[in-house]
């Protein structure tokens, strides 16, 4: 089928262009001062790198890492048992529950964030039942929002791995003397780690880089790295510092991927 092999060539070049070129431009932007992406008369500078040390940016990076780590851990604590429970259901109910876990994603993400925002206000629909949450602008609000939005991304990959697991491996471990708990700790859990790894990536990365969510639920008081980058590119047009921060994000992502990949022997994706 060598003839058909040529079909993917144009795509490869398009991807090199759309993935590779922006990274090169971002690196160039990060070490210059320019107007947008116009490089005429640009000179090399380390100003942006120095500015990275400013309180706002350090705080934003720290906020991103801390809040999305907490959200990811909560997603894992809720998501793993739920995924495990779904695999144990009869086929008929299994798909029903799974569909119910996934279908909220058809609802617009921004609107779901707004729904939480409305509930977290001191004056909300909840007043009708005598509750006033008044959480807007807190870290708790941001974390609840993240968990609510990204929980399905934790459940789904874990479910997939658990559901595909060879039943005879579980029988084999029982046969060799493992009790119920040991079957879980020595076989099921280690074998589901690849699903956990993709679940962690799929919740951690988008929640750490979100900007609409912290903007709405943080009430403008808590900035994450996404807010800062969005602000730099879309409002103050400082592409140079924006690019540098984006590069920081990319480096963190690939660092995290490498750690998880090494642990997992390259099992994800």
């Amino acid at each position, binding site marked *: 089928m060598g003839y058909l092999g040529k079909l993917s060539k144009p795509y490869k070049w398009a991807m090199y262009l759309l993935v590779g070129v922006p990274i090169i431009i971002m690196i160039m932007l990060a070490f210059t001062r320019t107007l947008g992406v116009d490089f005429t008369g640009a000179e090399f500078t380390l100003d942006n790198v120095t500015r990275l040390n400013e309180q706002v940016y350090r705080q934003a990076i720290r906020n991103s890492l801390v809040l999305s780590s907490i959200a990811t851990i909560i997603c894992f604590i809720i998501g793993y048992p739920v995924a495990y429970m779904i695999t144990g259901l009869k086929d008929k109910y299994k798909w029903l529950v799974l569909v119910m876990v996934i279908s909220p994603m058809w609802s617009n993400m921004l609107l779901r964030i707004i729904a939480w925002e409305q509930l977290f206000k001191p004056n909300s629909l909840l007043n009708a039942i005598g509750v006033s949450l008044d959480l807007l602008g807190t870290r708790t609000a941001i974390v609840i929002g993240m968990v609510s939005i990204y929980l399905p991304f934790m459940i789904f990959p874990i479910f997939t791995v658990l559901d595909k697991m060879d039943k005879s491996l579980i029988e*084999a471990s029982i*046969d*060799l003397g493992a009790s119920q708990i040991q079957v879980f700790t020595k076989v099921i859990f280690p074998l589901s780690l690849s699903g956990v790894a993709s679940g962690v990536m799929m919740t951690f990365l988008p929640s750490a880089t979100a900007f609409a969510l912290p903007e709405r639920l943080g009430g403008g008081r808590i900035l994450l790295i996404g807010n800062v980058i969005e602000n730099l590119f879309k409002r103050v047009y400082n592409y140079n510092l924006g690019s540098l921060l984006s590069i920081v994000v990319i480096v963190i992502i690939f660092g995290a991927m490498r750690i998880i990949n090494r642990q997992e022997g390259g099992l994800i994706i």
Partner: protein
Amino acid sequence: MSDLLVSLENISKKFDDNLVVDGINLDVKRNQLITLLGPSGCGKTTILRMIAGFEDVTEGTIYFEGKDIGNIPAHLREINTVFQNYALFPHLDVYENIAFGLRLKKEKEINIEQRVTQVLEMVKLDGYARRKVNQLSGGQQQRVALARAIVNRPKLLLLDEPLSALDLKLRQEMQYEIKDLQNELGITFIFVTHDQEEALTMSDQIIVMNQGRILQVGTPEDIYNEPQNRFVASFIGESNIVKGKYLGDYQVEILGATFACVDDYIDIGDETEVVIRPEDIEVVDTSMGQINGIVDDIVFKGVHYEVCVIVKGTELIVHTLNSPKVKEEIGLLIGPEAIHLMRVE
């Protein structure tokens, strides 16, 4: 210590409304290689899984060393299993797969190392301890599965079609190795297979099953030479099964001629089914044959020719070293020892 290791008493198993095992009684002695032989779906694997504890029995009792083990969960039974597709743990290497059971028993590290090394040697895998299991060939994975089970020194080893995924040559090699291993360990192996040749080669005793019932229990020789019914006769080896009539006094009428036989448990004048193995029929000149027939087809099989002879409208398969010609009329001789009578069901 009683000679009896496992007893199945009146065991039945239903899946929903489907009766898979139908009232089986079976005694298994120590230090034997027992084969459960039958076509797929005959209930042999289910029996194995009930002994291992993976399935509950619907009815009946399983005794292990005289004790009812119905309430003992699978992980506490002194029984280990070699699974059909090996079920090796992909997250552990060869050494850790084998050490799995010992670690659960909290054996000392030095004992674990010694025992794992010993079984690795037994299954000829020394030097493979730190390999990943998915980097091994089918035959090597098979050996790891064996080693992982026997390292726990079970009193009974269950093997569920363990060779079915291997190619013919490797399968034959492993048959001898498993037999040797059983001799060396001195424990009972219960081996499930649908391959009659495998069963005949390896077993001390064969249990032939069909549709959830035991049809015959015996040594390979018994089963081969004296099948008790049509199913066993046709399942084990190639055979001619023809209708006949017992005339009494060790005389039987088949294909319009009278033959001497050695069986005498059929009532005089009763219909009988007669089993004649193809290699037991001798091809002679027409003048010397007890019966004569026309050669219909000849196939060369390497060591012998497989000849199809039509005798009075009935096809007989004959194995012979000399090739007759197609359409030629030949004579056939069948000695008394070669004629085995079965009751008609």
